[in-house]
């Protein structure tokens, strides 16, 4: 989150307000490590209902959203389920593998 501050007014100054000075943006490690995505790939063995249930459990998605992703996997061969920091993405991929879904962690170019 960037912050904006106004410079102090000097006594006798005719200027009302100095031009705002934008402070240098500071980013946490998480923001610097953003470009990772969790991708689930199609697998003809896993049941569609099972895949939907796993998406709901792992990501906390509502049923409709989980079904949309499941259908995308089924029809297009893959779906991006989540994107963000690497550590969290690894956690999600581990959860998905624990449910025997084909999932990978990909760096966004």
């Amino acid at each position, binding site marked *: 989150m960037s912050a904006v501050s106004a410079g102090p007014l000097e006594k006798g100054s005719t200027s009302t307000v100095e031009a705002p000075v934008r402070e240098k943006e500071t980013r946490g490690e998480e923001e610097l490590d953003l470009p990772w995505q969790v991708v689930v790939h199609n697998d*003809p*063995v896993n049941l569609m209902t099972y895949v939907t249930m796993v998406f709901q459990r792992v990501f906390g998605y509502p049923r409709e959203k989980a079904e949309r992703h499941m259908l995308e996997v089924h029809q297009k061969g893959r779906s991006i389920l989540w994107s963000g920091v690497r550590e969290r993405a690894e956690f999600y991929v581990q959860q998905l593998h624990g449910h025997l879904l084909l999932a990978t962690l990909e760096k966004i170019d």
Partner: protein
Amino acid sequence: MEICRAGDALQISDLDPFLAELLRQIPISTNPDGAPGAEARLFAQPSAEEEICAEWKSYVEPELRRLFRSASETVADDLEQLNGSKKSLSNCTLHIPIQHADAWLNTLNQARLVIATKYNFSDEELNDHDRSPIGSRRDLGLFQINFYGFLQEFILREISA
């Protein structure tokens, strides 16, 4: 065979010897030995990046092995109900505690994936739900996949009800 929810358990009753045997085969069907493709499917690569895969093999894969083995052991324990009895299987009922549902879903999935990989079934074959199990070991494998999928569907319906 009848399958229903009975309180805090799932109940499979009126088992004929053939289906009872397929149930007994669930834990052993999860064994990927002799099928390198099945091992690779159960423990799939998590990334195209070598560094991630190496870390995964050291730290995550052992956890996954423990998880899968634990689920399979839970199912094997439940299936003990089908062993050691001389009475007719038509009177035999298998009770699956609802808290074992996740272990069953996981183990059935392991079994289906391993069988599918061992026999290298095509998408078309996997969508063929009417093939007779009588014919070859391969046909029986496809029947197993469908039967285990049917059980998964039932369990999923019951736990989400």
